[in-house]
């Protein structure tokens, strides 16, 4: 794909006021102060757009500070939305439209725009102090510096206050509704259906009807402004994307993870127990799951990260599906308990919504740099399963897969999401619930050893899993712990040969978890370059590969869901191509694994800027590789 607007046709069909132009895709970025309600505005525009049947990808970008000083660069919050008549695999590289609610929002985002992009600014904010605060010596709306853009100066604040003059709301409340004025204007320009937004406003301000009315009025005023002013001469339409039939909803990665965990509970018929400690960007999973108690889900907000996973492990020991959710710093703290779970061989799902590190790093920015800690970050030989979702909606299936592996193979599983998929959103084709994987397990009920003894470490020959004998089961009382256990009996053992056997067995049981073979997307017979990715890079990698193929270049693509164990055919796949490129938002952590494991000289392409790859930069990298191969 490309980020340019494809002006495919100009239809003769026009409303009374403005001709309508058909576009293939549009990228809009709403930017303002963190208090300006840009995330909400973006969410509403997304919802209106989804209902039109466009394909969508979104990306919010907000500061870690809850309210940085008003009007400053660090306080800028933005929401980018890409909607398309074909596929929207990423939120888009360069916005076609920027809505800038103040000079800070303009300054912080201008460099990302393509030349010729439309900029809608609230001129009321472009005054002395607001300008100097962010380093503008002259008003950029007047000094010619925006000549390369299509600037639409709109006194948003004044117009909003004016529109609400007779409603009786305070000036401050009226001013706060200016984001709805902007949304109304954008909704008019792009011919979005707005009934759901009006319903949303009625719901959101249900306890303060005067504010609901004011926001609705502001929205309509924005719409009407577009219709009556002569500044906007064209309206745009983006046709629905061809998508498989079915029911859809727009969903973020964190919400999809939470729903996947609910589904895992239903399909396993086990109570889900979440132990969590608040941490950005994972907390939304805790918020979401805590709303679903009616499914028998227990959420415990623990005193720290260690207690959070401890409680989850305790619940797993008692026969629940234990889950803990966190981000990188929390994974570090949980390491000792994850190792205990490895030794105890109990099911446990550990969700790491990665953010830029090390240490506190950039908590609201994305990165994939926790692959090393997921694969290797424990003391002793402590292997476990690791998987990663590729897109926001894919988080639903990934959560179910994590639970399936944990329950079937009695092992901790680390699911590596990241801030990009967690807060990004896309349309999700709702699954048929009855066709989700059957996750039911059998608890041990009877002694399994000679003379009616129970052997807690006697393994299932198929899965190598030990019996899950939960407290309360008569005749199976036994003791487990972190000390090395004798094979079979689970008694404490310092026997050297037994330790060697147990270490190798724990490694073998993870290595032998069956993982689906990779299917390479490679439409060209003579392809020499393979792009291999994992996790949230799926969108930009796929978009870049498709863009190159549209230009007649041959490139193959494959994406890893399972990072441990790796698919059995991965070695063969790597060997098939002259060159393998591995883009990662870290310094080459997967590349190192592939080199060590398969002795293949993969090319590592990395970026750690806290933001996802753009389609354009990846297409350039891949094109260079194709040229060199």
């Amino acid at each position, binding site marked *: 794909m490309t980020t340019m607007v494809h002006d495919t046709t100009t239809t003769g069909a026009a409303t009374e006021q403005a001709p309508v132009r058909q576009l293939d895709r549009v990228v809009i970025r709403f930017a303002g102060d963190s208090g300006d309600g840009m995330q909400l505005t973006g969410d509403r525009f997304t919802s209106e757009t989804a209902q039109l049947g466009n394909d969508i990808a979104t990306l919010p970008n907000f500061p870690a500070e809850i309210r940085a000083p008003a009007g400053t660069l660090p306080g800028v919050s933005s929401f980018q939305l890409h909607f398309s008549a074909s596929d929207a695999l990423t939120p888009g590289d360069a916005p076609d439209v920027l809505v800038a609610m103040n000079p800070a929002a303009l300054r912080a985002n201008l460099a990302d725009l393509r030349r010729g992009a439309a900029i809608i600014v609230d001129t009321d904010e472009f005054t002395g102090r607001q300008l100097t605060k962010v380093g503008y010596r002259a008003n950029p709306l007047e000094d010619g510096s925006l000549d390369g853009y299509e600037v639409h100066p709109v006194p948003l604040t004044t117009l909003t206050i004016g529109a609400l003059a007779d409603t009786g709301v305070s000036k401050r409340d009226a001013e706060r509704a200016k984001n709805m004025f902007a949304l109304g204007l954008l909704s008019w320009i792009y011919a979005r259906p707005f009934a759901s937004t009006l319903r949303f406003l009625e719901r959101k301000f249900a306890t303060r009807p005067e504010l609901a009315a004011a926001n609705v009025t502001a929205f309509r005023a924005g719409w009407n402004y577009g219709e009556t002013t002569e500044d906007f001469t064209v309206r745009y339409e983006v046709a629905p994307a061809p998508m498989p039939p079915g029911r859809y909803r727009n969903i973020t990665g964190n919400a999809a993870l939470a729903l996947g965990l609910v589904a895992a509970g239903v399909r396993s018929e086990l109570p889900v127990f979440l132990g969590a400690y608040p941490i950005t960007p994972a907390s939304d999973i805790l918020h979401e799951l805590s709303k679903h108690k009616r499914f028998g889900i227990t959420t415990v907000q623990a005193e720290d990260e260690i207690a959070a996973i401890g409680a989850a492990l305790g*619940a797993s020991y008692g026969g629940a599906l234990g889950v803990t959710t966190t981000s990188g710093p929390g994974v570090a703290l949980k390491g000792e308990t994850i190792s205990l779970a490895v030794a105890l061989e109990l099911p446990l799902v550990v969700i790491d919504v990665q953010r830029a590190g090390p240490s506190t790093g950039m908590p609201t920015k994305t990165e994939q740099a926790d692959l090393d800690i997921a694969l290797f970050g424990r003391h002793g030989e402590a292997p476990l399963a690791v998987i990663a979702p590729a897109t926001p909606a894919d988080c639903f299936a990934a959560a179910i897969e994590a639970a399936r592996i944990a329950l079937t193979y009695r092992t901790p599983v680390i699911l590596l999401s990241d801030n990009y998929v967690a807060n990004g959103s896309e349309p999700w084709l709702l699954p048929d619930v009855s066709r989700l994987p059957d996750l039911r397990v059998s608890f041990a009920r009877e002694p399994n050893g000679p003379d009616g003894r129970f052997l807690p470490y006697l393994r299932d020959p198929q899965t190598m899993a030990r019996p899950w004998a939960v407290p309360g089961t008569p005749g199976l009382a036994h003791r487990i712990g972190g000390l090395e256990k004798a094979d079979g009996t689970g008694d404490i053992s310092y026997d050297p040969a037994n330790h060697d056997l147990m270490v190798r067995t724990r490694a073998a049981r993870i290595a032998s978890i069956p993982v689906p073979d990779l299917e390479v997307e490679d439409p060209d017979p003579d392809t020499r370059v393979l792009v291999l990715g994992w996790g949230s890079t799926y969108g930009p990698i796929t978009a870049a590969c498709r863009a190159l193929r549209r230009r007649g270049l041959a490139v193959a693509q494959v994406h890893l869901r399972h990072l441990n164990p790796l698919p059995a055919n991965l070695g063969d796949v790597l060997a098939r191509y002259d060159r393998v490129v591995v883009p990662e938002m870290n310094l080459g952590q997967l590349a190192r694994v592939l080199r060590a494991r398969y002795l293949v000289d993969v090319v590592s392409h990395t970026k750690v800027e806290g933001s996802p790859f753009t389609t354009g930069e990846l297409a350039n990298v891949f094109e260079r590789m194709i040229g060199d191969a």
Partner: protein
Amino acid sequence: MPEVALSLTARDFRSDQEVRWCPGCGDYAILAAVQGFLPELGIPRENIVFISGIGCSSRFPYYLDTYGMHSIHGRAPAIATGLSVSRPDLSVWVVTGDGDALSIGGNHLIHALRRNVNLKILMFNNRIYGLTKGQYSPTSELGKTTKSTPVGSPDTPFNPLSLALGAEASFVARTLDADRQHLQSVLRAAAAHRGSAFVEIYQNCNIFNDGAFAPLKDPDVRDDHLIRLTHGEPIRFGADGRFCVTHPPGGFGLVVRRTAEVPAGEIVVHDESVTDPAYAFALTRLSGSDLGTTPVGVFRAIDRPCYDDTVRTQLAHATATMPHDPTGMLAELLDSGDTWTIG
């Protein structure tokens, strides 16, 4: 919790594992007392779980024929919280030590107590790190000479019961390893308490801190040091009750005085149900590192909401109004919010 008429004995609670504490360790006496007490609970063995951390005391679960987990250092209260909250049919006990509970696991202990999780927490206090061979612990006396403090410990110790009360503990007690009858009476009270029960057990480490509690055990002197608290009884101790506990004429707290000098009406009558923690706190301050006058028994046992019950009530409330059709509910949940149909 299933309660049945059982004819279990102490022997039924012995596991097949060889007990491997040092000969003479106070842990043997505690183990025997617990094994002797458990049949009284009338709970099937499989519904009892002992969870421990790391340290000498934390080997405890291996020697009991119940369900058990020897977990990681300091984390037993956290793991036990997850188990207890999700399994109301179990009797969950935590076995820990002074280093495990108060040093590396201090955070989990205080939060389990403030939440009032339904756990019986037995903290074996020997005032030393035994398993790592003799470093000072968070209950070692100021100035104590150990392997890691050759010129004396610079640390002020915790008073574990004061700490527990500061953490809003609803049940706080202290007993001694060597006094089986008293130990079992405290276990009985702890087991009967709904919520967190924190029991400090003074335990002798005969290898690294031998005689730490001698003043409370030596038959010749112990009566003048040991204050046996009995609910509803005036607090008197010493030969013929020659000492008593009373309120100071001015100021806060409680003091020890000669009974002969105190009008009978001014001797404090012990009441473990006093809701103001200041009373139990004052009792805990009667002794410090020096063990001069050390109360044992149940300091505090009050009713307040138990975390497990509150969490389960919320769950029950949420599930009660729903038809039991998880698949249908799930389909409905997924199909909520702003949805649309294509094709």
